[in-house]
């Protein structure tokens, strides 16, 4: 009986998280604020880099570092919107009444993950094409982007929840998120370098494991700690 209740509880959480995700998605497509912010930021930096370096001048080391720096700072420009919006529109209190904190966090996390995937889907092929970046192991790059996105979105979402409650929202987000998410950046760059070399120069499995483990740790910590921020 108890396990049945637990199952139902989990199902309920999942459904509510999905509903919140759907609500955010609909709201996002009305204004496209976060998507525009991230995508345009990525595009502008991409073209600035391409313009400054030229097509054939950069080595794959520099190219893989630049790819992740573009993705990282682009995501920093938009991920915080998800919670800041609720505070600015004063809808946070209503949200508190209709859903549990875990559901809210999961819904917002899924939204941020989807948002990042959409941006990556546009920006990464564009980057590869424009910068003349030869990728030998596409699956490896895809795995790095997949796990990296989970980590970035997980850390970004919990830090967004923190800064939405503070006074200096814009400036603080990057300051707080950057050091926490640096393992993703460092490991992601390293895997991408590996993917851009014909012969793998180090074992990529341990790096992917570390990316995956980081995502799990940061998302778990986020779910556990979100209660305390949200009800503040």
């Amino acid at each position: 009986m108890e396990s049945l209740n637990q199952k139902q509880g989990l199902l309920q959480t999942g459904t509510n998280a999905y509903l919140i995700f759907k609500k955010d998605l609909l709201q996002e497509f009305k204004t496209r604020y976060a998507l525009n912010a991230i995508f345009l930021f990525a595009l502008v930096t991409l073209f600035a880099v391409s313009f400054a370096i030229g097509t054939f001048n950069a080595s794959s080391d520099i190219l893989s570092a630049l790819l992740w720096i573009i993705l990282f700072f682009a995501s920093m420009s938009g991920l915080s919107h998800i919670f800041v919006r609720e505070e600015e529109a004063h809808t946070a209190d209503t949200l508190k009444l209709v859903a549990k904190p875990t559901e809210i966090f999961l819904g917002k996390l899924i939204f941020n993950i989807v948002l990042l995937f959409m941006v990556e889907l546009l920006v990464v092929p564009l980057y590869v094409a424009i910068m003349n970046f030869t990728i030998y192991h596409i699956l490896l790059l895809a795995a790095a982007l997949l796990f990296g996105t989970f980590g970035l979105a997980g850390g970004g979402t919990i830090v967004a929840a923190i800064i939405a409650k503070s006074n200096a929202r814009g400036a603080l987000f990057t300051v707080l998120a950057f050091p926490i998410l640096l393992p993703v950046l460092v490991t992601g760059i390293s895997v991408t370098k590996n993917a851009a070399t014909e012969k793998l120069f180090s074992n990529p499995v341990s790096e992917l494991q570390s990316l995956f483990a980081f995502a799990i740790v940061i998302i778990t910590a986020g779910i556990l700690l979100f209660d305390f921020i949200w009800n503040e």
Partner: protein
Amino acid sequence: MVNKLLKIGLFLILSLVIIGAFIYAPLAKGLGEFTRVLYFHVPMAWITVVAFFIGAVYSILYLKKKEHKYDLYAETANQLGFLFVVLATVTGSIWAKMSWGSFWNWDPRETSIFILMLVYAAYFALRSAVEQADRRASLAAVYDIIAFVTVPFFVFIVPRIYASLHPDPLINTQGKIHMSPKMQLVFFTSLFSYTMVFVWMLIMRIKMIKLKLKLKEMEQ
């Protein structure tokens, strides 16, 4: 009285450690005089981890009990941790200059300690950005815990994946210590006495916080 004796004892032990590190302890095989910085660098790094750990514990306590004092304890432990992380970086940098040739060359260990400093600098930035005391306390506590769960990635995982020139840290995979008995004596005395200095500092600051809170209470 006991307190005074303890302080004098600590002073004597620390003096012995400094003398021992420079004169008594033999050099490790094939390494130069500069390796003596080991007796100061490793304790600083160790205390950093201890201090940040204590800070994280107080942060958890704050979230559980919502008592204002735990927030202040967490802040003070993290401040002390920051002091020691700077000391560990400086001693390590000197060591790097002597054995690797430059003060800073982005060895994985150097990168990870740099990120560690960034994380806790961000923690203090967050504290200064929130004005209401109880809100600041919970936000800072949450950030502190998130910061602390990512610390193992910097300290243990990232340096494992990338080839580092840094010798194995105290907590290594084989669980062995490669030191002669004389070196071990000085090393562990140093570790112990510096930890005691840290404990002393922490106790003093906690006492100060308690007095401040009492003063506030009396004023009201």
